[in-house]
């Protein structure tokens, strides 16, 4: 309650996500930030005060006037303004150490989700259930899940400002964080370590929902895609399996099992295409299939130069992948 009051008084919770913590981990950092802001504010005021005093209290220089008393310093004052900051930074150090423990507790032996950064999308594998998703991570409200962070190519960095610390994903050096949300909602996250051409569009959505809904979602993710019977969608599936799509993508229940690009088994249930660059709408999907490079320059998916009919069939099929 106390902390919510803080956020409300800042009146910017909607914009300044770091000051709108939605998990105990993020809140611990926020609390430390408040302490830091107060301490820094006081130091800032003291120095500005000394400068203002110097400028306002003493007369300005005038041409031809004799120079003022040539004081050269004062040892006592020097010791004071060395010792007090030393004391302050010691306190800040202790507080930092304490907050590190709260906001980033040690990881359990087995993570709940393995998140892998790729150029330029996020893969998430739920180890217990085996669900594999892309760019959208669902979590149950109020429960801390352990994330293992991996990278498939270069460095990336997983950062959801409202939920806590960021952490680099390093190829060959798995990292761990906890993720938790106190309230249901969708939290926007970013890749914050520069990772090449489309670093800007490597967003991740963390969807926190009540336990039952989360379980329903997780079960749904495990269901294989149904093969459409008849119509353009069936042609689309055939096309998907004939063309190069299967070299990179997997759709459970079909022959497509490649792990290079995002798993598309439940593509149609996702909110975004291209790790956040456009909404997942029928027209955007068609734009993407016509030429992914036009939607997201440099994305690893090439332009396959599908005909309009092929685009339409593929899109019809993909829209069935709920």
């Amino acid at each position, binding site marked *: 309650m106390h902390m919510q009051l803080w956020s409300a008084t800042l009146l910017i919770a*909607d914009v300044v996500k770091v000051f709108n913590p939605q998990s105990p981990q993020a809140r611990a950092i926020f609390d*430390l*930030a408040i302490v830091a802001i107060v301490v*820094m504010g006081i130091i800032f005021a003291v120095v500005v005060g000394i400068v203002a005093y*110097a400028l306002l209290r*003493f007369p300005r220089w005038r041409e031809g006037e004799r120079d003022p008393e040539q004081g*050269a310093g004062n040892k006592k004052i020097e010791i004071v303004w060395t010792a007090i900051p030393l004391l302050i930074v010691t306190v800040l150090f202790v507080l930092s*150490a304490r907050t590190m423990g709260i906001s980033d507790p040690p990881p359990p032996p087995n993570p709940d989700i393995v998140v892998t950064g790729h150029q330029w999308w996020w893969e998430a594998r739920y180890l217990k259930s085996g669900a594999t998703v892309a760019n959208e991570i669902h979590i149950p409200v109020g429960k801390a899940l352990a994330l293992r962070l991996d990278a498939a190519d270069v460095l990336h960095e997983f950062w959801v400002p409202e939920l806590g610390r960021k952490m680099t994903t390093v190829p060959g050096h798995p990292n761990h964080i906890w993720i938790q949300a106190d309230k249901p909602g969708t939290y926007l996250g970013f*890749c914050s370590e520069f990772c090449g051409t489309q670093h800007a569009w490597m967003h991740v959505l963390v969807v926190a929902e009540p336990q039952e809904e989360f379980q329903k979602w997780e079960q749904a993710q495990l269901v294989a895609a149904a093969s459409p019977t008849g119509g353009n969608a069936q042609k689309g599936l055939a096309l998907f399996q004939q063309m190069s799509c299967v070299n990179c993508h997997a759709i459970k229940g079909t022959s497509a099992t490649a792990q290079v690009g995002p798993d598309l088994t439940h593509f149609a249930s996702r909110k975004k295409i291209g790790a956040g660059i456009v909404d997942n709408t029928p027209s955007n999907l068609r734009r993407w299939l016509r030429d992914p490079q036009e939607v997201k320059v440099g994305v690893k998916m090439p332009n396959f130069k599908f005909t309009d009919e092929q685009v339409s069939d593929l899109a019809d099929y993909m829209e069935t992948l709920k």
Partner: protein
Amino acid sequence: MNGDTTITGTIAHLLTPAERRHWRLAWLSTVDHKRIGILYMVIGLAFFVIAGIEALLIRLQLMVPNNTLLGPDTYNWMFTMHGTTMIFLVAMPVLFGIMNYVLPLQIGARDMAFPRLNALGVWLVPFGGILLHFSFLASGPPAVGWFAYTPLSETPYSSQSGVDYWAISLLVLGIGSVSAGINFIVTVLTQRAPGMTLRRLPLFSWMIFMNAFLVILALPILNAALVMLLIDRLLDGRFFLPFGGGSPIMWQHIFWAFGHPEVYIVAIPAFAILSEIIPVFSRKPIFGHEFVAASTVVIVILSLLVWAHHMFTVGLGHTVDLFFVAASVLIAVPTGVKLFNWSATMVGGRVRFTTPMLFCLGALLQFLLGGLTGVSHAMAPLDWQTKNSYYLVAHFHNVFVGLIVFAILGGIYYWFPKMSGRMMSERIGKWVFWLMTIGFNLTFMIQHVLGLAGMPRRTYTYPDLPGWGWMNMVSTIGAFFMTAASILFVWDLVRSLIRGKPAGDNPWNAWTLEWATTSPPPHENFDALPPIRSRRPLWDYANPDRPDPVVPVGGAIDTFRPEKNAAGVITFIISEAGFFGVLILAYLFYNATPQSGPGGRELDVWKTAIFSVCLFASSFTIWRSEIAERTGNHGKMKAWLVATILLGGIFIAGQGLEYWTLFQHGVTVGLNLFATTFFTLTGFHGLHVCAGLIALMIVLGVAFSRAFKRGPLPALGPVALYWHFVDVVWVFVFSIVYLWPLIQ
């Protein structure tokens, strides 16, 4: 003043009458520290225009959400080139220029210790800069950020030549900077005027002296990182590629072991400028000179111990993080001491709001904020949120622009009269100051909020989230104010150069020696020097009724004045030790765990031991040669010198033989991590032996030349020193590479 009111006429005016006919050549061929200083600044200014345009393009692209002005790759080039250029081709050259101009004058020297080395250093800047920018004409500039994190900067992810240009160019600039650092140290040690003890050095000179140590310690670390990256990229090495055992995190350690001191390498000269200007325009000496001087020493030492605060999110573990939290928050203490002392200097003074003083006041307050946000980054949990966001961008621009650019502008307004003999315009200067201050704060203040709102740095565009659009718009508008200020500043430079008011020797009534000579000073700086008994000789001279208390001479260190060439070689050796230190540590790190493929055990220890004995013996022979030189026995001296060269040659031949055998067995640089580290370490040692051999042969040639038939051969001592160093390095390399596997 001559009446010529063209720019070439004015530039020519800075030369001696004899040089004016060939003024272009006179500037190109100069070894005068003052002209080299000006060259540094002009070159820096030229690159400032380029990097400034890049900054404007960045801000234009980010002006509105989902903007398409620049494509992602173009944008990524822009921020990489902007950062690299601003640090290595603007901040460093301009500051080195000011240092080059002012330092010898302030210590009453006629020139730098090594004027020709100084000229080499300045011309390496355009060479490196053009190399870097040549990438635009090749396959495109690097797009990896100014710290080129691996593996993105490795061939599989940056396959075009941009990163190679980047690395080679920084190598060139790094070598130039080390040469300048050596020169500053040796100049302070050996060229001080009589009476100018180390304790009597004005704060500016003292800080530049300290900073030079940081330069020779930090830049070689960058050079080592760069050669390792280049070996990865060009010779299929494996240092930083995760498959094959390399470590991307190692790059970060090495880069930031350089990178954080680098921040101080450009910040300490700014501190130095503030420490010089604030007292002069408060009409009082600096408050607590000794404390400000000592705080600089503490900063230099601590700055070498805080690099991993750039790596709090890489996952080094809380224990390592905590060490670097402690070291990093500690640095706030000596930095705070500086801020307090600058502020206290004004208390009880008669502040004179000239343009240089305004810039320094602005720098003080803006750096206060930048320093405080720096503490917030030092607190790891806060860094976990704010790192790599626009909050960080705002923080370091508060230091780089808020402090350093403001200090540079203040410094130029302050010393321009000395350099040109003419005053800059106070009226235009104040316009520049206010435009710059408004523009800077508009641009960067709001970025703190943007970062806390979640905007990551280095994104070519962003979604239209609440607040992001207008905040970025404000930031872009600020950038235009800064552009206006910059244009006005350049205009004022040109205008003042042609028709500024004549300055006289000491327009600001300042107290240090650069103001004790004409403006501009004559070729060798001084006709006569006032007595030096305190840190403000001109104050003592002008105020015989109340001079500063005499700064007593404090013993051997205070008056330390080593021989110039030996001092030069020893400082060079210190920098080289840093370079080899990194390569040796890398060897130990990468070979600590067993790996598949050949390792140290497969090497032929005994054969190499024989060649090593030759190298060690050559240290003995050159020592004998030195003794012969001292006793005047030229024949013996030459004979021992020839023996040294032969022994060194045998060692190199042995190394060549070893390499050849390894190649025959398919062991090449890219085979495994052992091969990569082995060839890198022994190869660079071999290169140094070759450099030593060339130096020895030059000495031998000189010894045979007519002029040195008799008498001493001063070049022998320093070269011998260097030769001993190369041998000592081999003691370490041989023990680690060849002997260590035997006892394992």
